[in-house]
């Protein structure tokens, strides 16, 4: 099929890559500034593992083209705009409606809020099969290609039989291993997407709250969460405590959902989760501050991991940023290592003389007074402890993801602090 994708973010590129790989003719349209950008400068492509390669492959194969041609024909139109581009979406839809009087299928994957798809549908004529369906994205940054092309669950938000049939056929290549396919109205589908994201955020918020309490109650949160996870009503997912969650997509959805609650005059659980998460991002700083009795003057601190989670170069809403800000504000020398995100970090901190970017994790810890583990990249799980002991000025490790074994570290002679244990 001929498919045109609108958008410049991760959702747009992932859809374009997967749809092209499945044999579709895909056009991706964005503003001129975006089109002229070399691919490797587009952060969504650079930060997501495998995506840049896949896009280059599909471009070379000719199944994917970048275009600025607003009139270019397509059977299916795929909206993956940013959450604040509702008016642009409305304009696109209006133009499409005029140009394609009947049998027009538009897939909406934008985070515009509950009821937005219905509002966009109002610009179209349902009687002549001008239909917009809402398909929540299953985007997990770091695993985005897999999430799209080997979907386990899919929700189709539409009440038009024609559109549902067309959408099923469009998704056929990607739903071979499907466990759950559900049809509902677009409004319900939008709500479901928010509800899932919100639930995950609340679980993370809750386990972090438990971990902070465990810190004060002399119990190990690891033991507690194993006990919790064994209960089938709870399960083990999204129960790892840590120094805060980040990322763009996830945060945008929960922020938007919290806004919806607020607009209805309700203080939501989610709002608390969001604000507590911002506080959680400073947890490692607080532990350090307390350890050094409120005085970090003249200290040098190493940070391992800057991306908001392993497997991505993205630093959007990453806890590392709040930590670095806090340390720099105290005049601390900060030495950061990250296998992927240093480029993004350098752009974020253009003028910070106290901050250095280290290509090797052991360079980062040279003569430091603490090592803060912020992102649990696989290469950090089993470091050369003796080298760390030798290189660090003070052998203090503050582990924001609970990846190290406390007893072993203490045997080596480190001072160890985790989250909730």
């Amino acid at each position, binding site marked *: 099929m001929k498919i045109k994708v609108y958008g410049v973010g991760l959702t747009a590129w992932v859809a374009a890559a997967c749809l092209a790989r499945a044999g579709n003719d895909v056009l991706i349209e964005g503003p001129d500034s975006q089109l002229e950008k070399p691919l490797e400068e587009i952060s969504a492509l650079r930060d997501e593992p495998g995506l840049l390669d896949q896009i280059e492959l599909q471009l070379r194969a000719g199944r994917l083209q970048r275009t600025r041609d607003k009139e270019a024909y397509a059977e299916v139109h795929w909206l993956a705009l940013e959450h604040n581009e509702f008016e642009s979406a409305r304009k696109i839809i209006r133009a499409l409606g005029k140009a394609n009087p009947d049998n027009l299928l538009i897939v909406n994957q934008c985070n515009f809020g509950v009821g937005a798809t219905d509002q966009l549908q109002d610009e179209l004529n349902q009687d002549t099969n001008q239909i917009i369906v809402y398909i929540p994205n299953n985007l997990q940054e770091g695993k985005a290609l897999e999430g799209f092309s080997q979907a386990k669950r899919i929700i189709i938000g539409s009440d038009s039989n024609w559109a549902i049939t067309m959408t099923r056929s469009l998704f056929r290549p990607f739903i071979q291993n499907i466990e759950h396919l559900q049809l509902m109205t677009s409004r319900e589908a939008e709500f479901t997407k928010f509800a899932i994201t919100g639930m995950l955020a609340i679980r993370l918020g809750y386990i972090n709250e438990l971990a902070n309490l465990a810190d004060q109650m002399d119990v190990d949160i690891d033991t507690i969460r194993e006990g919790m996870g064994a209960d089938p009503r709870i399960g083990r997912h999204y129960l790892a405590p840590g120094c805060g969650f980040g990322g763009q997509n996830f945060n945008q959805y929960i922020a938007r959902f919290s806004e919806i609650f607020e607009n209805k005059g309700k203080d939501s659980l989610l709002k608390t989760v969001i604000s507590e998460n911002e506080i959680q991002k*400073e947890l490692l700083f607080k*532990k350090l*501050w307390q350890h050094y009795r*409120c005085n970090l003057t003249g200290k040098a601190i190493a940070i391992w991991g800057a991306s908001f989670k392993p497997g991505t170069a993205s630093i959007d809403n990453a806890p590392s940023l709040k930590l670095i800000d806090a340390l720099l*504000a*105290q005049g601390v020398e900060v030495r950061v290592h990250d296998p992927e995100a240093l480029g993004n970090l350098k752009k974020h901190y253009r003028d910070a003389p106290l901050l250095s970017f280290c290509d090797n994790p052991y360079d980062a810890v040279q003569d430091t007074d603490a090592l803060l583990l912020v992102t649990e990249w696989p290469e950090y799980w089993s470091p050369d402890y003796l080298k760390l002991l030798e290189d660090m000025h003070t052998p203090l490790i503050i582990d924001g993801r609970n990846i190290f074994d406390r007893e072993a570290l203490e045997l080596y002679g480190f001072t160890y602090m985790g989250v909730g244990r």
Partner: protein
Amino acid sequence: MTVDNSPAWLALNTHANKVREKHLTEMFADDPARYEKFSFRAAHCLTDFSKQRITATTLQLLIDLAEQQKLSQRIEALFTGEKVNLSESRPALHTALRQPADQPLLVEGIDISQEIHASLEKMETLVDQIHNGQWRGYDGSPIKSVVNIGVGGSDLGPLMTCRALSMFAPEHIRDIDIHFVSSMDGSHLSGLLTHIDPASTLFIVSSKSFTTIDTLANANTAREWLVEISGLPVELISQHHFIAITASPEKAADWGIPEKNQLHFWDWTGGRYSMWSVIGMAIALQIGNKNFRQLLSGAHQMDTHFRSAPLHENLPVLMAMIGIWNINFLDIHAHAVLPYDGRLEHVPAYLEQLEMESNGKSVTLKGEKLNYATCPILWGEVGPNAQHAFYQLLHQGTESVMCDFIAPALRYQDQGEDLQAQHQLALANCLAQSRLLALGDSVLDDADNAPAHKRYRGNQPSTTIMFDSLSPASFGALIAMYEHKVYVQSVIWEINPFDQWGVELGKQVATSLLDQFTQQASSATDSSTEGLIRYVQQLRRENQP
């Protein structure tokens, strides 16, 4: 020769004999253009004196009096840093606090402008640090609550301004809750400590001398609270949870606040004139550094007007001289301040201190006892609320009272029609009250037939002060206008507005009485004090656990 025997004063006396007989109703009837003649605009403010019991001649005679008292020279003396505070032998340079940085001001060879701006910049750095969430409490939390501990000038100005301008809080900064604690008995503080989080609370201790017992008692309690909850040594808590704003750096350091957490001002800044200095830190925390500078700039506009405008169109001068007319020639000794805008609710309390502590004096600059009235009793309340409280006395009581009505012309311009309608309702009430106070029931057609208890005699003079809309700049100008009004009156009365010896003795006597509550046999010098102490002692004994 004292001023009340001077030619200009005597001329006003003679003139007053005629004017006193005239009712404001007649004055308005005689001259339909009173508003045009007697209303003036400058530096964001409009002052309408047409409801004052004055004629064009009155104003001229008042200006004559001002000139006779060499007012223009005295204004220059104030601005140029002459020692206008004779009893303490120092200048009063609140105007310098709001002077732009590029205008040097040499006082005894030192450019104080540089010192002032260096001090302000240090304050701004601390404010930024708090706004950015990078001032850390003992557990590493960023500051959420700031408690301003101060009393008198270290409390009233910042409190009034924070409340008046709270809507100007800048966006994209950490939201800080600002609290004010002043009462010596700990009532403010004890209530507050139950619902703020110690680790994220910062205390600003404001005291010019850093010996004010009210303030230090509160600061000690606050510090004890933090030490107890945190389990940390007192030195650490003093360093991370206290800022000192003072003119006595050593005393603040002795108390435990390091130099880097101190902000300084100078002995030439009177307490009640100090909110423009670093004492205004709470204001800057509330409205942001930029808006704080706007506040200073608005006040500076009024300063420039006061210093350069001819006396007969000089707002603070006219306000002051008409006040003198009311007090000394029409025998009015009560002054009500009535803002028609809830945001200005703390303005009356501020002006009570500004006017009464400044001009509540009965000795001239030469040290002679004077025999004419000076500062009247001044009080006030948000106008619409006061209408349901003491306006009865204004309309039908036996006292003559002069009133200041204060209101912004515009409000809620971008917040919908309902609220705009509420503002209009307030303005209609404001104008109705000043009209009725001036003209009495003559505004009605058949008032004469009403029974006596329903009659309104009118002839109560008032000034209406309006400004375009409430903003940091217009508010700065308004407060500066009152400051200068107070100074002008002091010049005419030949008194020192910058000292306050009348508040000293009470402190000493209190100190000497303190021990008597715990002594077995009380030995106060009068039977009343002695009796009251015994009463407290007895109740304490009876209620011992």
